[in-house]
């Protein structure tokens, strides 16, 4: 169970965020203004923070800037009605770890928070990633499933690496596209599906327990058999 802080002035949105995060077994605190949010965040003890960009008084950018200046490295998901690329860049540059535009699907928001939590836990440098019998050598850029070598294209390796790094998490298509390709627009849903389908053929050949699962209505998850 993770301790999360939600800084959001709009009560409806806040309820949505809190409900979604709680439903996934997290302990969530909510504050509705920047000043209180900043002092709570500095006091520490939180594993991740969701931060609204536009707040009365002290706004989101000021909060994150002050937080990082105070040396607090808690991962922060910025949530904003401003979808402009410039705004995204400013939010991330100020110290935000991820950026989500309103309106958002709660499961997408929760998925992003979970990725941040995971990143927090796995901060140490690993050179080999393992999920079940899948093994990724990040230095040699080689992947193996059990005793079998997987012949992956560079893009497929990057995609698999992202899935493995966040194994067990639901990853939406947007998150996958943003993380693996580094662009922030909608490339059409089935483009990512096709890439995943291709990777799946190589990673999950017939006869082996499938690792890559489709989460209906949301995206994908790589996990060992439940």
């Amino acid at each position, binding site marked *: 169970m993770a301790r999360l802080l939600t800084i959001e002035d709009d009560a409806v949105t806040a309820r949505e965020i809190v409900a979604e995060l709680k439903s996934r077994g997290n302990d969530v605190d909510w504050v509705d203004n920047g000043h209180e949010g900043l002092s709570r965040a500095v006091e520490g003890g939180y594993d991740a923070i969701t931060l609204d960009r536009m707040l009365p008084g002290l706004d989101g950018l000021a909060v994150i800037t002050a937080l990082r200046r105070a040396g607090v490295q808690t991962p922060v998901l910025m949530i904003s009605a401003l*979808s402009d*690329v410039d705004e995204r860049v400013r939010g991330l540059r100020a110290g935000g770890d991820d950026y989500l535009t309103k*309106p958002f699907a709660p499961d997408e928001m929760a998925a992003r928070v979970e990725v941040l939590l995971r990143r927090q836990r796995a901060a140490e440098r690993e050179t080999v990633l393992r999920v079940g019998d899948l093994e990724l050598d990040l230095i040699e850029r080689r992947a193996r499933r059990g005793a079998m070598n997987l012949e992956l294209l560079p893009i497929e390796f990057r995609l698999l690496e992202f899935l493995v790094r966040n194994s067990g998490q639901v990853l939406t298509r947007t998150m996958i596209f943003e993380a693996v*390709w580094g*662009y922030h627009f909608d*490339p059409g849903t089935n*483009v990512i599906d096709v890439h995943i389908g291709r990777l799946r053929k190589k990673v999950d050949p017939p006869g082996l327990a499938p690792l890559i699962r489709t989460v209906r*209505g949301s995206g994908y998850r790589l996990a060992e058999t439940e």
Partner: protein
Amino acid sequence: MLKLSDHWRSATTRLIFIYGAFFVLWSIVLVAVVYWETNRYLSRVVDEIVEQRVRYLISIDRERLPEAMEATGALDLRGVMSLGLFGSDGRYIDGNIEHVPADLPVDGAIHPLPQGVERRGREERKSARGIAKRLGNGELLVLARDTSVIDQVGVIIRHALLWGLSLTVIPGLIGGLLLSRRPLRRVRAIEAAIEPIAHGDLRRRLPVSGRGDEVDLLAAIVNRMLGEIERLMGEVKGVCDNIAHDLRTPLTRLRAQLHRLQQTGGGEEGVGPMLERCIVDVDALLERFRALLRISELEDLRRRGGFASVDLGETLRQVHELYAPLAEDNAIAFRLESALQTNIQADPHLLFEAFSNLIANAIKFSPHGGKVCVRASMEASGPRVDILDSGPGIPSGERDAVLKRFYRSESGREPAAQGYGLGLSIVAAILRLHGFRMRIDDNETGGTRVSVHCWVEAMPSPHFMR
């Protein structure tokens, strides 16, 4: 650089020439009047002197006449007076005129003698005014006075006219030409300012110099009009954006609720797949609104802050990598022909998005087993990218329309194909932001060819005179 022919045509220059012609004409008329009046006055003075002298000579006794004539000659220091006394038969008696001038009527009135009189002891003949009068005894007295002074005055006035005109008209014309440059320069400045407005940047305004002259008045009128157009456009766009934005929030909530329902199991048999379909539909709706707002955002985005040097070949390679599996799944031969080693000034994210959209479209509209080719080449003005597909093609009449929001071609494209034409509008908005150009025409082997010219079009400088 302004050309002379431009000067020649400008309103100021034309006015200056017309004004100059009037000035010359009036100067000539004025000087002519002065000349004529002076001439008349001086002639009258001469006439009075001649009349006075004649009256005097007639009034004295005949015996003393030669003596008086002598005295008159002696008093005439400038030698302008000629006189002669002749018998009734025309025989010479006395004086410095030896013959009665043939063109002088004997009527006692003063007449002009343009040929002058033949005078003893003087070779040249000067124009004069003269009189011939019979004395009581039948003898003839002839008196003439030179009028060359009047001629000289005339010459002086003519010279004054020539000098005066050349000293006013020539510098006046030169000055006028120089002056006419200023309004021309301002017209050029307005032309330059209007260029981005014509390309859709309604926030620009025409320059107003603050002098309050005609050009300023005109610019102010146009600026007021632009302000109003901008306001109206803003309102229309604002309404569209607000609708899209307002609908997005409830749709997102709807999707969240559907998702939650799906997660909690849905209960009854057959509800699961239905929920799944609902979510897919809501997603499609949301996607469309997102695209609509994205276009709007791009149209607002006039910053060039995100511009950087972008490797066009590498961008195309990445787009190819992203879409190659999709093409392969549809059995479409997808080739990238690029040997480009060029960097262009562009927003890397937007450039990628634009080419993604174009290629996604090309793949979407090519039939199973078709061909899509991305061909990058270098032209004299810059790199050019052609995207060729083997789809049904876009009829020439619809090529402009497909760039508009929500357009979907009726011909040959089954409605089942995803995408409501917003993709091309997004591309058009991105390219417009960069100043790049896109052309849609037929591919030689059937299908559509979309050409993107990745160079900033040189401002077409329409010669405003033409």
